[in-house]
């Protein structure tokens, strides 16, 4: 592998160990920070929690890149091989992120529908009929 000497390769491996360990510790620290264990009340601020989440995801992606390129020696493989493996993997990462957002959206829509149904049952607005067209507007009941 490459033009590094034996001793240099070994040193690099242990540097990698320290790097991964430090990144993991930072991840855990940022996660606990985002949950309010380091400073009280952080978990209430949506911006800080979102920022902590982004940092954690970024660090994990960096760990993944390091493991694949250095430990699995992808760095020394032909570019075609690397692309044929990594491009689908990147699509997977995107799919995971996209479906997390999708889940949030489901939750928000569900509570929206719940509130709407509650308003309907309290007779403050007219219920939607089966043949109504979109977009639907809430119309107050008119006598």
């Amino acid at each position, binding site marked *: 592998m490459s033009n590094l000497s034996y001793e240099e390769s070994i040193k690099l491996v242990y540097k990698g160990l320290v790097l991964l360990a430090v990144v993991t510790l930072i991840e855990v620290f940022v996660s606990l920070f985002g949950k309010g264990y380091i400073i009280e009340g952080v978990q209430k601020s949506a911006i800080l929690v979102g920022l902590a989440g982004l940092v954690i995801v970024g660090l994990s992606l960096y760990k*993944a890149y390091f493991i694949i390129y250095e430990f699995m020696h992808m760095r020394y493989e032909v570019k075609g091989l690397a692309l044929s493996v990594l491009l689908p993997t990147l699509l997977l990462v995107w799919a995971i992120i996209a479906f997390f957002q999708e889940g949030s959206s489901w939750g928000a829509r569900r509570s929206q529908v719940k509130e709407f149904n509650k308003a309907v049952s309290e007779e403050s607005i007219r219920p939607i009929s089966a043949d109504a067209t979109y977009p639907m507007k809430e119309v107050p009941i008119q006598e």
Partner: protein
Amino acid sequence: MAAETVVQDNDTQVSDDQWGGGKAPFKASYGKLMMWYFLLSDAFTFAGFLIAYGALRFSSPTWPVPDFVFSTAPFGVHDAPLIFVTIMSFLLIISSVTMVRAVQEGHRENRQGVVFWMLLTVIGGFGFLGCQAWEWNNLIGTEHMSLTTNPFGSYTVDGVYLNPDGSVSDETFEAGESYLIHKGSLGHHELEGYDEGAGDHDAHDLSPGDHAGYFVDDRGYVHRKYQVTSEGELNGQIFQEEFGPRAFGGLFFFITGFHGFHVFSGVVFLLIILINSASGLYAARKNGYEMVEKIGLYWHFVDLVWVFVFLVFYLL
């Protein structure tokens, strides 16, 4: 023959060189290339599970907060959020590093080095499995979580607990905090992981049914009652702790179990190839112990999946 001559004159005829064989695509051996593509397919499977977890978790109004659920460790440690699972991560990272060393020794055709470093990797793998087993035993045996029962919940309102006799205590909580529904049994308050303020309700009547300050269901879970103190139409009403989202148990045990199965099969393969290396089988092939490199790829993949399971389940 005439047909042959015509074919040979065809401009679009592919030369024999390309289809004559002997050329490795991407300059990688068959075994290594196929291992990469197997790992890619396995990544799709795990991504599917993580997507299911993420979509279900973020669409639920409440979800057990990971740093509350996973705050115990062996030897009676509790209230140490995420520490044990961080130790598990380190175990896998270290075993990945020893695997890289084994591959390096293999490239130097150093049989003893390969056996030594692979042995360390196997020990790391067994250590991780042991830790995961402890975690499962703790959740199932001590905290009474199962595939369908999730005793970890979180509050959606602010409130104050009731004492066992029904009077209002001074133990308050806020919306977003987590709770664990305990299962009443003799001496359970000595078991690790329980909140000190849970009260010694085991000294009280644990027969199934409605009591003044708590409700015992017919499986023995003690649902403590509380009074809502946050503003709104629920203010002043009395509720009991309910089980958390049902999907949590199935998702957690299945995903960590599937990963643990990969670790176990990885350890088995590592042992097989370790024994083969020790016997001199790979030295005879004179290919730089390529088999060790291939199983190294699998082992690093197991570590990689854990990075993402750790991220999704415990950190986010």
